[in-house]
């Protein structure tokens, strides 16, 4: 295998090595269909949030509100359930809130020129306030319709329902980014916004739409997470933020150009998912799990830079 191929496929090889290592360490628990089922379920919401982050990073921006959007959408949905509304109204309403919140991020960034770090953190904090207020700070798990639980539970022909969500969402995102005019414009904006502006691309509109999609995807992830757990806490989506960006960064190491891609992000999600799942099964101490999770992100990004230099 040439150095070029190693650089290109090194991250994938690392993923395979991890899987093989955990399979050898725990053949009766890690390398089982039941655990594969678990892994797919556990990765799904992170994969969707990470896809939202990927879209935003494609235009060279950050969205720090993804976790807050996920929490608020789930809270709104469960509050509506509590008020007696059915799933067909509660779910679209929650998704709409996510899209509107995302679009507001886009307006702050594209129209008013506020750096995305600041704008999305501020708006995310506002969203978290609404989630806190609506939930009263309590865990909500009453009056959840069975139809809602079915969104993220169970399987079809032995494949977890959440696996189909991964394929659907990431498939559409990959198609949009790679096969459509809109996707090519996003890459152009991310590559050189000034050049894109001079070329007459509708930057403001595209940035707003991108953030709106990210908000909608985050809300969807929050709803699927709530469906999977059967309960909602007003902070439940927040822990998704750092792993989502970690997955995107790891994924960029698998990209020939170092740019974020949906496939790379999926690989990043899979690596982080397998790491945590495998370490838990093998019985790695909790403090070592945290250290290794940080180490792998640093190593991945450093190796990317080394690979580029070579």
């Amino acid at each position: 295998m040439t150095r070029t191929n190693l650089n290109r496929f090194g991250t994938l090889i690392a993923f395979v090595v991890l899987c093989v290592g955990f399979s050898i360490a725990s053949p009766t628990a890690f390398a089982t269909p039941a655990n594969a089922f678990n892994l797919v379920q556990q990765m799904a919401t992170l994969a969707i949030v990470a896809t939202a982050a990927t879209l935003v990073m494609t235009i060279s921006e950050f969205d720090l509100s993804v976790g807050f959007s996920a929490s608020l959408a789930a809270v709104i949905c469960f509050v509506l359930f509590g008020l007696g509304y059915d799933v067909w109204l509660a779910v679209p309403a929650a998704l709409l809130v996510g899209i509107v919140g995302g679009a507001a991020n886009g307006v702050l960034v594209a129209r008013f020129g506020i750096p995305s770090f600041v704008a999305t953190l501020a708006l995310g904090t506002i969203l978290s306030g609404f989630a806190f207020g609506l939930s009263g700070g309590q865990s909500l798990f009453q009056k959840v319709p069975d139809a809602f639980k079915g969104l993220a539970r169970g399987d079809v022909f032995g494949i977890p329902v959440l696996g189909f969500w991964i394929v659907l969402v990431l498939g559409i995102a990959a198609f949009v980014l790679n096969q459509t005019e809109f996707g090519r414009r996003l890459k152009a904006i991310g590559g050189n916004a000034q050049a894109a502006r001079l070329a007459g691309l509708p930057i403001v509109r595209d940035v707003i739409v991108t953030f709106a999609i990210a908000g909608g995807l985050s809300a969807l992830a929050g709803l699927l997470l709530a469906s999977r757990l059967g309960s909602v806490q007003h902070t439940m989506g927040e822990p998704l933020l750092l792993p989502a960006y970690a997955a995107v960064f790891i994924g960029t190491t698998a990209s020939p150009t170092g740019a974020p891609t949906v496939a790379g992000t999926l690989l990043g999600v899979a690596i982080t998912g397998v790491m945590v799942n495998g370490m838990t099964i093998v019985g790695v101490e909790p403090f070592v799990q945290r250290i290794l999770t940080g180490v792998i992100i640093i190593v991945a990004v450093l190796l990317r830079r080394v690979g580029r230099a070579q």
Partner: protein
Amino acid sequence: MLKTIAALGLAATLALGVSPAALAAGEKVSVITPFLAAIATGEMIEAFKAKAAEYQWSVDVVDTAGDMAAFASRVEDATTSGAKAIVLVSVDPAQIQDQVDKAKAAGVPVITIDGAKNASSVLNVTSDNYALGETMTKFLFEQIGNKGNIVRFFYSAHPGVHQRELALDDALKANPDVKQVADHYVAVPGQVDDSRAAMDAMLLANPGDGAINAVWAAWDEPGIGAELAITAAGRKGIIIAGIDGNPQAIELIKGCTPYVGTVRQGFGEMANIAADQLNKILAGGTPDKDELYAPVELITRASLGVTCN
């Protein structure tokens, strides 16, 4: 090549990080919590591990640092990885009902310590949290002559803590001369620092003597944060009471600070009861009841034999 070497290095590090318990013989028991950073939760888990060592179980401890999605995932992992039992600490299993149902369906008994009763778990060992709140509130109100202004530090997401809050609500209704002038929903983790900051703000917002007479802390750590703020501000005439019997809170009570009382939960006792009951379950038996209470104790300056001027 570098990436492959790095992956192999990580795998080696993983091998070094495998807990001795995971390599030990005996029944494998998975202990999972989102709140290991809380002192009380840590105390329960350490006590459980000590008791488990006596029973020669292999215990894996997992902390998800407040992340409920990860918490659900780790319960799934434990279910499929051959654990003989799952012990959930400081959490209501209803928050991950599907995962608890699956564990039950797989024949893996789930018990909770400081949690809540659940149809799919076999046992919850806890304190009567309403009684804890009632005991502490009654003491605190008596200390201010059942009259004055209090502030509340709370965290309703925890089912046990919420029961204590309900006890305060009932006490406030029964004592109309006690007014709640401010409250703060505590951020977890980071509860001590967060509570100190909140208390700083409350002191500034209520500057006069007697504007705040007492701090009601749903557990000791927010009370400790409030004590830091009150002492730093040099405010007199404000007392604090909490719940848990946290060693630091007891030292503050001994030290004649504004911290005047705590209700000790028998965290070690809870863990011991849970381990003894689990031993019965693993031997093919059933627990004595589906919910068992550990004894509680009001700790004050008087009970500690301390006299303050």
